[in-house]
Protein backbone atom coordinates (compact mmCIF):
# COMPACT_ATOMS: atom_id res chain seq x y z
CA UNK A 1 0.00 0.00 0.00
CA UNK A 2 3.10 2.17 0.29
CA UNK A 3 3.02 2.40 -3.50
CA UNK A 4 -0.23 4.33 -3.25
CA UNK A 5 0.75 6.51 -0.28
CA UNK A 6 -2.04 5.09 1.83
CA UNK A 7 -1.32 6.18 5.44
CA UNK A 8 -0.16 3.55 7.91
CA UNK A 9 -3.05 4.45 10.25
CA UNK A 10 -5.49 3.27 7.54
CA UNK A 11 -3.66 0.07 6.66
CA UNK A 12 -3.02 -0.54 10.36
CA UNK A 13 -6.75 -1.07 10.86
CA UNK A 14 -6.38 -4.45 9.18
CA UNK A 15 -4.53 -7.65 9.89
CA UNK A 16 -2.98 -9.28 6.82
CA UNK A 17 -2.64 -13.00 6.31
CA UNK A 18 -1.10 -14.94 3.46
CA UNK A 19 -3.56 -17.69 2.66
CA UNK A 20 -3.92 -19.70 -0.53
CA UNK A 21 -3.06 -17.54 -3.52
CA UNK A 22 -3.57 -14.25 -1.79
CA UNK A 23 -2.89 -11.87 1.02
CA UNK A 24 -6.12 -11.24 2.91
CA UNK A 25 -7.07 -8.16 4.89
CA UNK A 26 -9.39 -8.53 7.83
CA UNK A 27 -10.68 -6.62 10.83
CA UNK A 28 -11.79 -9.82 12.53
CA UNK A 29 -9.97 -10.17 15.83
CA UNK A 30 -10.32 -13.93 16.28
CA UNK A 31 -9.62 -16.50 13.62
CA UNK A 32 -11.45 -19.81 14.16
CA UNK A 33 -9.23 -22.86 14.35
CA UNK A 34 -11.03 -24.63 11.51
CA UNK A 35 -10.67 -24.68 7.75
CA UNK A 36 -11.86 -21.41 6.31
CA UNK A 37 -12.94 -20.40 2.82
CA UNK A 38 -12.22 -16.68 2.98
CA UNK A 39 -10.63 -14.42 5.57
CA UNK A 40 -11.96 -10.90 5.13
CA UNK A 41 -11.20 -9.45 1.69
CA UNK A 42 -8.38 -10.52 -0.57
CA UNK A 43 -6.06 -7.49 -0.71
CA UNK A 44 -3.35 -8.87 -2.98
CA UNK A 45 -3.18 -11.70 -5.47
CA UNK A 46 0.01 -13.72 -5.56
CA UNK A 47 0.88 -14.86 -9.05
CA UNK A 48 4.61 -14.38 -9.42
CA UNK A 49 4.27 -10.73 -8.43
CA UNK A 50 1.81 -9.13 -6.02
CA UNK A 51 -1.26 -7.55 -7.59
CA UNK A 52 -3.61 -5.31 -5.62
CA UNK A 53 -7.26 -6.29 -5.88
CA UNK A 54 -10.05 -4.00 -6.98
CA UNK A 55 -12.13 -5.12 -3.97
CA UNK A 56 -9.52 -3.91 -1.46
CA UNK A 57 -8.69 -0.73 -3.35
CA UNK A 58 -12.38 0.11 -3.24
CA UNK A 59 -12.06 0.10 0.56
CA UNK A 60 -8.78 1.97 1.07
CA UNK A 61 -8.24 3.66 -2.32
CA UNK A 62 -9.87 6.91 -1.23
CA UNK A 63 -6.83 7.51 1.00
CA UNK A 64 -4.33 7.01 -1.84
CA UNK A 65 -2.08 9.98 -2.62
CA UNK A 66 0.31 8.45 -5.18
CA UNK A 67 -0.18 6.50 -8.37
CA UNK A 68 -3.79 7.58 -8.66
CA UNK A 69 -5.46 8.13 -12.04
CA UNK A 70 -8.50 10.40 -12.13
CA UNK A 71 -11.02 9.80 -14.89
CA UNK A 72 -14.08 11.73 -15.95
CA UNK A 73 -17.45 9.96 -15.86
CA UNK A 74 -17.43 8.67 -19.42
CA UNK A 75 -13.81 7.45 -19.32
CA UNK A 76 -14.60 5.85 -15.97
CA UNK A 77 -17.45 3.94 -17.52
CA UNK A 78 -15.19 2.76 -20.37
CA UNK A 79 -12.58 1.69 -17.83
CA UNK A 80 -15.17 -0.30 -15.87
CA UNK A 81 -16.17 -2.01 -19.10
CA UNK A 82 -12.59 -3.14 -19.58
CA UNK A 83 -11.43 -0.65 -22.22
CA UNK A 84 -7.88 0.64 -22.54
CA UNK A 85 -7.77 4.40 -21.85
CA UNK A 86 -5.11 6.51 -23.52
CA UNK A 87 -3.45 9.70 -22.35
CA UNK A 88 -4.22 9.52 -18.62
CA UNK A 89 -1.16 7.82 -17.13
CA UNK A 90 1.43 10.60 -17.47
CA UNK A 91 4.71 9.29 -16.01
CA UNK A 92 3.04 6.55 -13.98
CA UNK A 93 3.91 2.91 -14.52
CA UNK A 94 2.56 -0.26 -12.94
CA UNK A 95 -0.51 -0.66 -10.79
CA UNK A 96 -2.61 2.43 -10.09
CA UNK A 97 -5.75 3.33 -8.17
CA UNK A 98 -8.36 4.45 -10.69
CA UNK A 99 -11.09 6.81 -9.55
CA UNK A 100 -13.57 9.44 -10.60
CA UNK A 101 -14.38 12.49 -8.54
CA UNK A 102 -16.72 10.52 -6.26
CA UNK A 103 -15.97 6.83 -6.70
CA UNK A 104 -13.02 4.48 -6.43
CA UNK A 105 -13.36 2.29 -9.51
CA UNK A 106 -10.58 -0.16 -8.76
CA UNK A 107 -7.22 -1.33 -9.99
CA UNK A 108 -5.64 -0.36 -13.30
CA UNK A 109 -2.22 -0.77 -14.83
CA UNK A 110 -0.27 1.94 -16.60
CA UNK A 111 1.88 0.45 -19.34
CA UNK A 112 3.54 2.39 -22.12
CA UNK A 113 1.22 5.31 -21.51
CA UNK A 114 -2.00 3.29 -21.64
CA UNK A 115 -4.30 2.59 -18.72
CA UNK A 116 -5.29 -1.07 -18.82
CA UNK A 117 -8.33 -2.04 -16.82
CA UNK A 118 -7.82 -4.72 -14.15
CA UNK A 119 -11.51 -4.78 -13.21
CA UNK A 120 -12.65 -8.39 -12.74
CA UNK A 121 -15.32 -9.54 -15.16
CA UNK A 122 -17.90 -9.87 -12.37
CA UNK A 123 -17.72 -6.10 -11.79
CA UNK A 124 -17.90 -5.08 -15.44
CA UNK A 125 -21.20 -3.40 -16.28
CA UNK A 126 -23.77 -4.80 -18.63
CA UNK A 127 -25.03 -2.48 -21.38
CA UNK A 128 -28.45 -2.32 -19.68
CA UNK A 129 -27.00 -0.81 -16.49
CA UNK A 130 -27.53 2.81 -15.60
Amino acid at each position, binding site marked *: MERFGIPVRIVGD*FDFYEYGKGVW*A*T*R*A*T*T*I*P*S*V*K*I*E*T*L*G*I*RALRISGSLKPTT*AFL*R*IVGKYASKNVVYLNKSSG*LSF*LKGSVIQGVCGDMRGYVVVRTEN*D*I*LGCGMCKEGSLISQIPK*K*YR*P*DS*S*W*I
Partner: protein
Amino acid sequence: MKIEAYKDIIPDFEEFRRIMATPQPYWMRVNTLKISEKDLIARLENKGFRFERYRDWNAYMIVESPVKHPGATFEHSLGYYYIQDFASMIPPIVLKPRKGERILDMAAAPGSKTTQIAAMVDDSATIVANDIRDDRIRALAGNVERVGATSVIITRGDARAKRFGMTFDRILLDAPCTGEGVVRKTPRKREPDLREHIKFSKMQMRMVENAYRHLKDGGVMVYSTCTYNPLENEHVVQYAVDEVGFVPLQIDIDIPYERGVREWRERSFEGIWDKVIRVYPHRINTGGMFIALLKK
Protein backbone atom coordinates in the same frame (compact mmCIF):
# COMPACT_ATOMS: atom_id res chain seq x y z
CA MET B 1 -49.37 -26.75 2.84
CA LYS B 2 -51.97 -24.78 1.01
CA ILE B 3 -52.17 -21.27 2.32
CA GLU B 4 -55.79 -21.91 3.44
CA ALA B 5 -54.39 -24.25 6.10
CA TYR B 6 -53.29 -21.13 7.98
CA LYS B 7 -56.61 -19.29 8.01
CA ASP B 8 -57.09 -19.91 11.74
CA ILE B 9 -53.65 -18.64 12.72
CA ILE B 10 -53.14 -15.65 10.42
CA PRO B 11 -55.23 -12.64 11.47
CA ASP B 12 -57.24 -10.86 8.73
CA PHE B 13 -56.74 -13.87 6.53
CA GLU B 14 -58.71 -12.55 3.53
CA GLU B 15 -56.48 -9.48 3.39
CA PHE B 16 -53.44 -11.72 3.76
CA ARG B 17 -54.63 -13.89 0.85
CA ARG B 18 -55.29 -10.82 -1.29
CA ILE B 19 -51.80 -9.39 -0.76
CA MET B 20 -50.20 -12.79 -1.38
CA ALA B 21 -51.58 -12.63 -4.93
CA THR B 22 -49.79 -9.32 -5.61
CA PRO B 23 -46.13 -8.89 -6.58
CA GLN B 24 -43.74 -8.06 -3.79
CA PRO B 25 -41.90 -4.73 -4.03
CA TYR B 26 -38.13 -4.58 -3.81
CA TRP B 27 -36.53 -3.14 -0.72
CA MET B 28 -32.95 -2.02 -0.27
CA ARG B 29 -30.49 -1.14 2.43
CA VAL B 30 -27.69 1.42 1.97
CA ASN B 31 -24.26 -0.04 2.65
CA THR B 32 -23.05 2.50 5.18
CA LEU B 33 -19.58 0.96 5.14
CA LYS B 34 -19.10 2.68 1.79
CA ILE B 35 -21.49 5.60 1.45
CA SER B 36 -23.94 7.67 3.49
CA GLU B 37 -27.68 7.08 3.10
CA LYS B 38 -28.19 10.70 2.07
CA ASP B 39 -25.58 10.62 -0.70
CA LEU B 40 -26.71 7.32 -2.18
CA ILE B 41 -30.41 8.12 -2.13
CA ALA B 42 -29.71 11.47 -3.87
CA ARG B 43 -27.66 9.70 -6.56
CA LEU B 44 -30.29 7.05 -7.21
CA GLU B 45 -33.12 9.58 -7.22
CA ASN B 46 -31.19 11.53 -9.86
CA LYS B 47 -31.25 8.36 -11.96
CA GLY B 48 -35.03 8.07 -11.66
CA PHE B 49 -35.49 5.86 -8.61
CA ARG B 50 -38.22 6.72 -6.11
CA PHE B 51 -38.23 5.37 -2.56
CA GLU B 52 -40.43 5.09 0.49
CA ARG B 53 -38.26 4.98 3.58
CA TYR B 54 -39.46 2.96 6.56
CA ARG B 55 -39.51 5.50 9.41
CA ASP B 56 -35.92 6.61 10.03
CA TRP B 57 -34.54 3.14 9.33
CA ASN B 58 -31.96 2.26 6.73
CA ALA B 59 -34.72 0.42 4.83
CA TYR B 60 -36.12 1.77 1.57
CA MET B 61 -38.98 0.37 -0.45
CA ILE B 62 -38.34 0.95 -4.15
CA VAL B 63 -41.55 2.39 -5.56
CA GLU B 64 -40.14 3.37 -8.97
CA SER B 65 -37.14 1.93 -10.75
CA PRO B 66 -35.80 3.04 -14.13
CA VAL B 67 -34.31 -0.44 -14.65
CA LYS B 68 -36.04 -3.81 -14.60
CA HIS B 69 -33.94 -5.07 -11.70
CA PRO B 70 -32.93 -2.36 -9.23
CA GLY B 71 -29.50 -3.94 -8.86
CA ALA B 72 -28.57 -3.05 -12.45
CA THR B 73 -26.65 0.11 -11.55
CA PHE B 74 -23.01 1.12 -11.14
CA GLU B 75 -23.74 2.04 -7.54
CA HIS B 76 -24.83 -1.52 -6.84
CA SER B 77 -21.70 -2.91 -8.47
CA LEU B 78 -19.60 -0.56 -6.34
CA GLY B 79 -21.21 -2.07 -3.26
CA TYR B 80 -23.16 1.01 -2.21
CA TYR B 81 -26.42 -0.83 -1.56
CA TYR B 82 -27.92 -4.25 -1.08
CA ILE B 83 -31.29 -5.38 -2.42
CA GLN B 84 -32.82 -6.96 0.67
CA ASP B 85 -36.39 -7.55 1.65
CA PHE B 86 -37.58 -5.56 4.68
CA ALA B 87 -38.54 -8.74 6.54
CA SER B 88 -35.05 -10.11 6.02
CA MET B 89 -33.56 -7.04 7.74
CA ILE B 90 -35.38 -7.77 10.99
CA PRO B 91 -33.42 -10.77 12.39
CA PRO B 92 -30.08 -8.84 12.52
CA ILE B 93 -31.88 -5.89 14.13
CA VAL B 94 -33.28 -8.21 16.81
CA LEU B 95 -29.83 -9.79 17.23
CA LYS B 96 -28.35 -6.36 18.14
CA PRO B 97 -24.70 -7.14 17.30
CA ARG B 98 -22.07 -4.94 18.92
CA LYS B 99 -18.56 -3.91 17.97
CA GLY B 100 -15.85 -6.28 19.13
CA GLU B 101 -18.14 -9.27 19.53
CA ARG B 102 -17.86 -12.74 18.03
CA ILE B 103 -20.89 -13.38 15.88
CA LEU B 104 -21.88 -16.50 13.97
CA ASP B 105 -24.27 -16.57 11.02
CA MET B 106 -24.87 -20.30 10.69
CA ALA B 107 -26.67 -20.46 7.34
CA ALA B 108 -25.46 -17.26 5.79
CA ALA B 109 -25.71 -17.38 1.98
CA PRO B 110 -26.30 -15.29 -0.02
CA GLY B 111 -25.17 -12.86 2.65
CA SER B 112 -27.82 -10.17 3.07
CA LYS B 113 -27.95 -10.58 6.85
CA THR B 114 -24.20 -11.17 7.21
CA THR B 115 -23.40 -7.93 5.40
CA GLN B 116 -26.10 -6.12 7.36
CA ILE B 117 -24.46 -7.28 10.61
CA ALA B 118 -21.06 -6.12 9.32
CA ALA B 119 -22.51 -2.68 8.60
CA MET B 120 -24.24 -2.54 12.00
CA VAL B 121 -20.91 -3.06 13.78
CA ASP B 122 -19.02 -0.79 11.37
CA ASP B 123 -16.95 -3.77 10.21
CA SER B 124 -15.46 -4.06 13.71
CA ALA B 125 -16.24 -7.55 14.98
CA THR B 126 -15.48 -11.16 14.17
CA ILE B 127 -18.29 -12.44 11.98
CA VAL B 128 -18.15 -16.09 10.97
CA ALA B 129 -20.50 -16.74 8.06
CA ASN B 130 -21.15 -20.37 7.26
CA ASP B 131 -22.98 -22.19 4.53
CA ILE B 132 -23.00 -25.67 3.14
CA ARG B 133 -22.79 -25.61 -0.66
CA ASP B 134 -20.03 -24.35 -2.94
CA ASP B 135 -22.38 -22.33 -5.16
CA ARG B 136 -23.93 -20.66 -2.13
CA ILE B 137 -20.48 -19.94 -0.66
CA ARG B 138 -19.50 -18.27 -3.95
CA ALA B 139 -22.57 -16.04 -3.82
CA LEU B 140 -21.87 -15.21 -0.18
CA ALA B 141 -18.20 -14.43 -0.84
CA GLY B 142 -19.14 -12.27 -3.82
CA ASN B 143 -21.51 -10.17 -1.74
CA VAL B 144 -19.10 -9.85 1.19
CA GLU B 145 -16.42 -8.65 -1.24
CA ARG B 146 -18.77 -6.26 -3.04
CA VAL B 147 -19.81 -4.50 0.16
CA GLY B 148 -16.26 -4.51 1.55
CA ALA B 149 -16.95 -6.36 4.81
CA THR B 150 -13.46 -7.33 5.97
CA SER B 151 -14.66 -8.59 9.35
CA VAL B 152 -16.34 -11.61 7.75
CA ILE B 153 -14.71 -15.04 7.74
CA ILE B 154 -16.47 -17.64 5.60
CA THR B 155 -16.59 -21.31 6.51
CA ARG B 156 -18.25 -24.22 4.78
CA GLY B 157 -20.15 -26.92 6.61
CA ASP B 158 -23.44 -28.45 7.62
CA ALA B 159 -24.90 -26.20 10.33
CA ARG B 160 -26.31 -29.29 12.08
CA ALA B 161 -22.88 -30.64 12.94
CA LYS B 162 -20.18 -28.17 11.94
CA ARG B 163 -17.60 -27.42 14.63
CA PHE B 164 -16.49 -23.79 14.47
CA GLY B 165 -13.54 -24.04 16.86
CA MET B 166 -14.73 -21.17 19.07
CA THR B 167 -17.75 -19.87 20.94
CA PHE B 168 -19.78 -16.78 20.11
CA ASP B 169 -21.48 -13.85 21.83
CA ARG B 170 -24.34 -13.90 19.33
CA ILE B 171 -25.62 -16.40 16.80
CA LEU B 172 -28.00 -15.87 13.94
CA LEU B 173 -29.71 -19.03 12.80
CA ASP B 174 -31.77 -17.97 9.80
CA ALA B 175 -32.66 -21.55 9.16
CA PRO B 176 -33.24 -23.28 5.83
CA CYS B 177 -37.01 -23.65 5.55
CA THR B 178 -39.88 -24.32 3.16
CA GLY B 179 -39.99 -20.62 2.27
CA GLU B 180 -43.73 -19.99 2.28
CA GLY B 181 -43.05 -16.34 3.12
CA VAL B 182 -41.11 -15.63 -0.07
CA VAL B 183 -43.55 -16.94 -2.69
CA ARG B 184 -44.57 -13.43 -3.73
CA LYS B 185 -40.94 -12.84 -4.73
CA THR B 186 -40.21 -16.35 -5.98
CA PRO B 187 -43.45 -18.00 -7.17
CA ARG B 188 -43.41 -21.79 -7.33
CA LYS B 189 -45.44 -24.57 -8.83
CA ARG B 190 -46.62 -26.30 -5.67
CA GLU B 191 -46.86 -25.81 -1.94
CA PRO B 192 -44.65 -27.83 0.41
CA ASP B 193 -46.40 -30.88 1.88
CA LEU B 194 -46.48 -32.06 5.48
CA ARG B 195 -43.53 -34.38 4.93
CA GLU B 196 -41.36 -31.45 3.85
CA HIS B 197 -42.37 -29.36 6.86
CA ILE B 198 -41.44 -32.26 9.15
CA LYS B 199 -38.13 -32.81 7.33
CA PHE B 200 -37.17 -29.16 7.72
CA SER B 201 -38.37 -29.05 11.31
CA LYS B 202 -36.05 -31.93 12.26
CA MET B 203 -33.14 -30.31 10.48
CA GLN B 204 -33.82 -26.98 12.21
CA MET B 205 -33.83 -28.71 15.62
CA ARG B 206 -30.39 -30.18 14.96
CA MET B 207 -29.14 -26.73 13.97
CA VAL B 208 -30.55 -25.24 17.17
CA GLU B 209 -28.68 -27.89 19.20
CA ASN B 210 -25.45 -27.04 17.41
CA ALA B 211 -26.02 -23.32 17.94
CA TYR B 212 -26.36 -23.95 21.67
CA ARG B 213 -22.99 -25.75 21.71
CA HIS B 214 -21.32 -22.73 20.14
CA LEU B 215 -22.94 -19.99 22.20
CA LYS B 216 -21.17 -18.51 25.24
CA ASP B 217 -23.06 -18.70 28.53
CA GLY B 218 -25.33 -15.65 28.56
CA GLY B 219 -25.06 -15.32 24.78
CA VAL B 220 -28.11 -14.84 22.59
CA MET B 221 -29.37 -16.46 19.43
CA VAL B 222 -31.93 -15.25 16.93
CA TYR B 223 -33.82 -18.08 15.29
CA SER B 224 -35.70 -17.05 12.15
CA THR B 225 -37.38 -18.56 9.11
CA CYS B 226 -39.25 -17.20 6.13
CA THR B 227 -42.11 -19.65 6.39
CA TYR B 228 -45.49 -19.81 8.09
CA ASN B 229 -45.90 -23.39 9.26
CA PRO B 230 -45.68 -23.66 13.09
CA LEU B 231 -43.80 -26.96 12.75
CA GLU B 232 -40.80 -24.98 11.50
CA ASN B 233 -41.33 -22.09 13.89
CA GLU B 234 -43.02 -22.29 17.30
CA HIS B 235 -42.48 -26.06 17.44
CA VAL B 236 -38.71 -25.65 16.95
CA VAL B 237 -38.52 -22.85 19.52
CA GLN B 238 -40.51 -24.93 22.01
CA TYR B 239 -37.99 -27.72 21.49
CA ALA B 240 -35.11 -25.23 21.94
CA VAL B 241 -36.57 -24.19 25.30
CA ASP B 242 -37.82 -27.54 26.63
CA GLU B 243 -35.10 -29.88 25.38
CA VAL B 244 -32.00 -27.83 24.57
CA GLY B 245 -31.98 -25.33 27.45
CA PHE B 246 -32.56 -21.96 25.79
CA VAL B 247 -34.55 -19.24 27.55
CA PRO B 248 -36.97 -17.25 25.38
CA LEU B 249 -36.68 -13.46 25.54
CA GLN B 250 -39.19 -10.74 24.64
CA ILE B 251 -38.44 -8.99 21.37
CA ASP B 252 -38.48 -5.22 21.52
CA ILE B 253 -38.92 -3.85 18.01
CA ASP B 254 -41.00 -1.07 16.54
CA ILE B 255 -42.62 -2.72 13.51
CA PRO B 256 -46.11 -4.10 12.83
CA TYR B 257 -46.05 -7.76 13.87
CA GLU B 258 -48.23 -10.50 15.35
CA ARG B 259 -47.47 -12.72 18.31
CA GLY B 260 -46.76 -16.39 17.69
CA VAL B 261 -49.23 -19.22 17.36
CA ARG B 262 -50.55 -20.58 20.67
CA GLU B 263 -51.80 -23.96 19.45
CA TRP B 264 -51.46 -25.86 16.22
CA ARG B 265 -52.87 -29.32 15.44
CA GLU B 266 -52.99 -30.45 19.07
CA ARG B 267 -49.58 -28.96 19.86
CA SER B 268 -49.46 -26.25 22.51
CA PHE B 269 -46.77 -23.58 22.58
CA GLU B 270 -47.40 -22.20 26.06
CA GLY B 271 -44.41 -20.35 27.39
CA ILE B 272 -43.04 -19.24 24.05
CA TRP B 273 -45.94 -18.16 21.79
CA ASP B 274 -46.18 -14.68 23.32
CA LYS B 275 -42.44 -14.03 22.99
CA VAL B 276 -41.87 -14.91 19.34
CA ILE B 277 -43.05 -12.66 16.51
CA ARG B 278 -44.49 -13.13 13.04
CA VAL B 279 -44.17 -10.54 10.27
CA TYR B 280 -46.90 -10.72 7.64
CA PRO B 281 -47.08 -9.09 4.20
CA HIS B 282 -50.52 -7.60 4.81
CA ARG B 283 -49.16 -5.69 7.84
CA ILE B 284 -46.15 -4.30 5.98
CA ASN B 285 -45.54 -4.77 2.28
CA THR B 286 -42.76 -7.33 2.52
CA GLY B 287 -42.22 -11.10 2.77
CA GLY B 288 -43.21 -13.27 5.72
CA MET B 289 -40.84 -13.88 8.62
CA PHE B 290 -40.82 -15.67 11.96
CA ILE B 291 -38.37 -14.50 14.64
CA ALA B 292 -37.44 -15.74 18.11
CA LEU B 293 -34.82 -14.37 20.51
CA LEU B 294 -33.25 -16.99 22.79
CA LYS B 295 -30.65 -16.82 25.54
CA LYS B 296 -28.25 -19.50 26.75
